[in-house]
């Protein structure tokens, strides 16, 4: 029997995927598990494997097609077998205006066992019972369609997000609230009216074009999110300069032992991340999200580290950063940035942060304002360390000063709140020995 090749769902919130390329030509022989095609999700290119042995046929997907998850995009046929006639694959959905679609009805068939009972883990069963959910309406992603806790959570999310009526420039699911521990508050994606379009169309300059790069994949997501954040969150930006003398000394002291322990060199980003994770619990309004008329104060710190990968911004996340040692930050950072550069991060590893650090010091940038990574409350923009003359005991001495800027959402936090956070962070970095 022909095996369907479908657009895979690789992320809980994924509804469509952008097709990139087939790795096997139409009519080509494949074995189960061979890389078959590449798709682009919100954040990364992902190779999908052949679901069976056989010959690829009826491959309809083309580059840049935006295709709903689970839609059939081709078939694997046994030798001599014909393509199924009835279920011709539908044309791909147009990519232009992103629109929010009602979640696809879950397929209950998979979850049912031979006896007709639904396969579900005890915790999933208990959650469904407590919330009056019908398990047979929920699709499970475990073996044999078993329903796990994650499936219940995903189902709840689809139930709470409402379709938008007015056309908007952002698609709601791009900003999903992080899965961190908090007081129970229903997660709902923010619904914000789009800014009014200019009354007269903006003319493009009369110039020769070198290239036209389609706004798609990660770039599209970044532009949507940043515009959303910039136009909805009133940013306040506060800066101060930190004397890094002791932090430099600390790094020199721990460099060798930590290298022996982790195999990695301690970066200033690791020290900063550790400092932020230490200080942030004392400033709960900066580790928060605005959602559905509530400010959610997160118990967990899921720390995003802004990383540039081939002209795209990727934010790998160190989850539950609050309890981690410096050594663990070193290991986690090395692993995440390495895999981010190789595009090997899983979608869950680059989403769900509750606070972000963006360090441009390595490019020589001394200070900058960053745009908050929604739905976070704040982002820390870190500049280069610069030897700066400062007055000390009546003398002018050189000190390595580093400017840090906290950019916060004024709807959630006020200037004094941000200032207290910065002062706390400064004093922690200037007396950094408690960070070990």
């Amino acid at each position: 029997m022909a095996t369907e090749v479908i657009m895979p769902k690789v992320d809980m919130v994924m509804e469509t995927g952008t097709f990139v390329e087939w790795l096997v030509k139409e009519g080509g022989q494949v074995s189960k598990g061979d890389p078959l095609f590449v798709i682009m999700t919100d954040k990364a290119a992902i190779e999908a494997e052949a679901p069976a042995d056989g010959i690829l046929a009826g491959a309809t997907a083309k580059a840049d097609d935006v295709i709903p998850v689970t839609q059939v995009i081709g078939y694997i046929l046994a030798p001599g077998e014909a393509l199924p006639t009835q279920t011709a694959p539908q044309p791909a959905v147009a990519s232009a205006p992103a629109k929010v679609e009602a979640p696809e009805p879950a397929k209950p068939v998979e979850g049912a066992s031979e006896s007709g009972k639904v396969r579900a883990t005890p915790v999933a069963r208990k959650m469904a019972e407590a919330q009056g959910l019908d398990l047979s309406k929920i699709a499970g992603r475990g073996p044999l369609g078993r329903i796990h806790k994650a499936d219940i959570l995903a189902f709840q999310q689809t139930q709470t997000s409402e379709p938008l009526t007015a056309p908007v420039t952002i698609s709601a699911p791009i900003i999903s609230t992080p899965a961190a521990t908090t007081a129970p508050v229903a997660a709902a994606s923010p619904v914000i009216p789009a800014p009014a379009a200019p009354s007269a169309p903006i003319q493009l300059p009369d110039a020769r074009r070198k290239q036209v790069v389609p706004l798609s994949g990660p770039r599209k997501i970044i532009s949507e999110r940043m515009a959303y954040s910039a136009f909805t969150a009133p940013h306040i930006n506060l800066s101060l300069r930190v004397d890094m003398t002791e932090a430099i000394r600390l790094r020199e002291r721990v460099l060798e032992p930590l290298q022996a322990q982790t195999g990695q060199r301690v970066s200033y980003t690791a020290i900063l991340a550790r400092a932020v994770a230490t200080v942030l619990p004392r400033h709960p309004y900066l580790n928060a999200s605005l959602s559905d008329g509530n400010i959610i104060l997160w118990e967990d710190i899921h720390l995003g580290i802004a990383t540039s990968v081939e002209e795209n911004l990727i934010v790998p996340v160190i989850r539950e950063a609050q309890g981690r040692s410096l050594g663990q930050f070193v290991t986690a950072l090395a692993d995440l940035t390495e895999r981010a550069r190789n595009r090997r991060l899983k979608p869950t590893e680059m989403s769900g942060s509750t606070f972000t650090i963006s360090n441009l010091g390595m490019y020589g940038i001394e200070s900058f304002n960053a745009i908050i990574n929604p739905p976070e409350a704040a982002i820390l923009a870190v500049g280069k360390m610069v030897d700066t003359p400062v007055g000390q005991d009546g003398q002018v001495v050189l000190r390595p000063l580093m400017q840090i800027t906290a950019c916060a959402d004024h709807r959630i936090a006020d200037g004094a709140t941000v200032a207290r956070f910065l002062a706390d962070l400064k004093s922690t970095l200037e007396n950094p020995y408690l960070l070990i």
Partner: protein
Amino acid sequence: MTTREITYLEAVREAMSQEMRRDKEVFLIGEDVGTYGGAFGVSKGMLEEFGAERVRDTPISEAAIAGAATGAALMGMRPIMEIMFMDFLTISMNQLVNASAKMRFMFGGKCSIPMVIRAPSGSGTGAAAQHSQSLEAWFINVPGIKVVAPSTPYDAKGMLITAIRDNNPVLFMEHKLLYRQKGPVPEESYSIPLQSAEVKRQGRDLTIVAYSIMVPRALEAAEKLAAEGIEVEVVDPRSLKPLDTETIVRSVAKTGRVLIAHESPVTGGFGGELAAVIAGSEAFDFLDAPICRLAGKNVPIPYNRTLERAAVPQVEDLVAAARSLAQEGR
């Protein structure tokens, strides 16, 4: 308290010596424990300190060692019997199972049998099928005998002292590969209650319940998985009977997933008991995946080094099993 790094083997020796200095009724009996200092060197130097009356070499008869120890315990002494390899306990079985374990019950509590059976267990030294077994399940199934399998020098010292002071027979398992492992141990005498599992590493994604040699392996696996973003919690029951079920159940209720690891063969092993305890507890409502076991294969331990490794769970096996369990349905 002054704490310094010593080996597991030294911790065992220190516990015995401190108890022998404290209580003249405590003595050590076994094959080659005196002049030779023990097959693994555990009792080295003890003959010189305590003399041949209290560090007693015996003929090669494990039945006689167990019988002598049981008799001495019955008469009010506190023997520590050493069996050179756990495998040879089979020869002591009648004494231990039909006499030591049952006397207190059969005589209505008129006597007690305060004895410790120390036995090196486990594979990994190329000692083949008759010198590499982990026979804890045999003894756990005998009412009247307690079974302890500590994984660190600190736990070994504190639990051996508790075992010596216990008025019941306690089987004290010492994994051969742990003997050379170092860890911080206070110089002073201290005791750790038997029924006290310990969370050796905190994590949120799944729990590995491991004891003896599987603890350091589980910790190494957890470290590797942490780099992949999988946070493993490692719980060491330390004592298998009596078992601290509360700590285990609490951890599984937190993570919702559990992998049980031991070296002895999977079929009829202690992992089955642990799985049943977890499934029957309040953790059941929080389980988000089947309870999994990773244990020794159902084969005698092979002599060949490669096959010997393959017969029991190694770090990479723990990594693979824990990773797949953590990712199931997520």
